[in-house]
């Protein structure tokens, strides 16, 4: 029924102006060698080598491709190198920070550290630890609980408000005056320094609950001020890119607008919203200053956000670094601070994972 053409041995017209697959590797090897040689003249150092080789590689890769494959392909290769480069550049601080935290904190990490608070831990205790007479005492149970509860409450306040506002902006506002005002001021809100947010929340509760009222909930309100704009902005962007035809499809079925939003629009955008919320939480979970002026700081466990002072992980880290329990022997405090930082990072990591799972359940389905 059909005629198959014989396979010719000449070079295919489709591959004529194409570099072989091994070309980038050869260029990379060349870049490494040349940059090593150049640096050998000026004094060798590994970072310099990596940076120089990377620059050489990107340039040479572009040049070779330009000569053989033409400007477009060269631009494509150049862009690809830049994307990979960007990612590697982003990894450098990440790896460095994580490594710093791990290297400094892992020694302080133990089950005890997670389950005990700082009651009874004072200068002489740390002095004994520093002298090698006792193991590292104290832990972060109280701060972990504090951070968890305060962040939870901040989320309980911010996520509905933020999401509803985003919904208002995208679905109801329609460029009206109110929606433009909100859009604009939400941006302004992102620039409020955290300490100002803390002082504002403290001032607010001074009016409501009397001067000097400090509790987890005050901290949660302060964090909400910081968190809401991130939730609004990211959700708004994600809702905006939900195709209108999906809304129209639902409307045409006689579905109410709010149900359309809840059951069609939000599920379609959920993965982005979840990412945004995670980022918002991550943004505030590490805040120190606003919590100290709103929730106070204590060494013992308190699980009631509505009364009494509460510790939090970042405040714990901050004080352990800046004002060690034993001024003469700060090492145990430093160790606790880094270990606490490690725990905080793991906490956000788990949160991130949770958000992704939620997103996956609702996200648009693909495939057969």
């Amino acid at each position, binding site marked *: 029924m059909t005629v198959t053409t014989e396979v010719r041995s000449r070079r295919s017209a489709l591959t004529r102006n194409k570099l072989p697959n091994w070309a980038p590797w050869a260029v990379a090897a060349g870049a490494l060698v040349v940059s090593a040689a150049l640096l050998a003249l000026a004094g060798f150092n590994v970072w310099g080598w990596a940076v120089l080789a990377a620059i050489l590689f990107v340039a040479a890769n572009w040049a070779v491709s330009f000569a053989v494959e033409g400007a477009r392909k060269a631009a494509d290769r150049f862009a690809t190198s830049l994307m990979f480069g960007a990612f590697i550049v982003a990894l450098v601080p990440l790896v460095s920070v994580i490594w710093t935290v791990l290297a400094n904190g892992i020694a302080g990490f133990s089950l005890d550290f997670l389950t005990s608070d700082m009651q009874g831990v*004072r200068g*002489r205790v740390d002095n004994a630890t520093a002298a090698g007479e006792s193991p590292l005492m104290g832990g972060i149970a109280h701060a972990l609980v504090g951070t968890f509860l305060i962040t939870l409450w901040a989320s309980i306040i911010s996520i509905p408000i933020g999401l509803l506002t985003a919904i208002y902006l995208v679905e109801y506002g329609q460029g009206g005056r109110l929606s433009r005002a909100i859009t604009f001021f939400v941006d302004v809100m992102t620039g409020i320094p955290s300490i100002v947010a803390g002082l504002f929340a403290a001032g607010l509760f001074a009016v409501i609950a009397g001067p*000097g009222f400090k509790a987890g909930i005050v901290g949660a309100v302060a964090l909400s001020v910081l968190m809401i704009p991130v939730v609004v902005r990211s959700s708004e962007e994600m809702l905006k890119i939900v195709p209108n035809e999906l809304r129209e499809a639902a409307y045409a079925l006689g579905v109410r607008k709010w149900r359309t939003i809840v059951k069609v629009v939000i599920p379609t955008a959920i993965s982005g919203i979840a990412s945004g919320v995670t980022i918002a939480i991550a943004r505030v979970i590490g805040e120190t200053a606003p919590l100290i002026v709103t929730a106070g700081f204590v060494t013992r466990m308190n699980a009631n956000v509505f009364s*009494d002072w509460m510790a939090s992980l970042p405040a714990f880290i901050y*004080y352990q670094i800046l*004002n*060690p329990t*034993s*001024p003469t022997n700060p090492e145990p405090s430093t160790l606790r601070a880094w270990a606490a930082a490690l725990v905080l990072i793991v906490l956000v990591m788990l949160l991130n994972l949770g958000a992704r799972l939620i997103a996956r359940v609702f996200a648009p389905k693909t495939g057969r």
Partner: protein
Amino acid sequence: GTTSSAAGGTSEAAVSGTLTGTGASSVGAAMVAWAEEFAAANSGAQVNYTEEGSGAGRTGLIDGKVNFAASDAYLTDEELEASKATCGPDGAFDVPIYVSPIAVAFNLEGVESLNLDADTIASIFSGKITAWNDEAIAALNPGVTLPDTKITVVHRNDKSGTTENFTDYLSQAAPKVWTEEKSGDWPTAFAAESAKGTSGVVETVAKTAGAITYADASRTTGLGIASVKVGEEFSAPTAEGAAKAADTAHAVEGRADHDIAFDLDRTSTEAGVYPVSLVTFGLFCSSYADQETADLVKAFGTYITSAAGQEVAAADAGSSPLSAELTAQAAEAIATISVK
């Protein structure tokens, strides 16, 4: 934690309730130990303290946000006046609770101690002396081999009680060189490298060869320490020297009897005094709204200024215990606290 029978000092029965305080970070470590001891001796009593800074402490007490405060500077006259709204007609008052020497600390390979006088210190910190082998330093330190390392001055970038005390010393003891007034902010004219908090400056000095800073002496372990010329001798930053500086201070004029506000004598020539010291005052109201709070404040205030309390602070936080005389004065002052 360990308990001390002396905690809660006074003969009265154990008190209970929650006491809140805020203020200077210098007393942070001591406060942790005091709160522990106090709670152990008075079951049902607990003390919350945040290190929000001296200014926040003074404002907090005046605004009635806390029961007591700690501050590296005593209340000003205006603040005293303002405090009458919350603290009753006699207003608030100051009691020294924590004394510590400020060490001039440096990082110079092979040199663990140096002798410096006020003018030289001022010249170094104002940038007039830029190398370690400067003649002025060498003259004060015969027999010490000084490298020609560049001096990197490191000061606080946050507003700080330590800075205020240190610049107070320089402006009084070396007025010719140090032409700026005392201030909690490092004078812009002499700006150099800076870092946040005592840990910040100590850390930066520890990492930078040739660096020098000033910091609470309890925090400078591992760095080279300067002895300061007082009269004809050189004083090292010791507990005794600081305590003695507090003893020889001038009382602030025009204050009530129970207000133990004083200014250290920075130009003292008395042997054994270490004039570059820092005093943190406890700030209390002269009257409180209810008996329970008044009792609680009294008990806690008495305890921390007692010999036992001062010992605890010395052991846990490395401070200099108040002299017996000051302790007694403090006890008397705190005893005047009443209910509105």
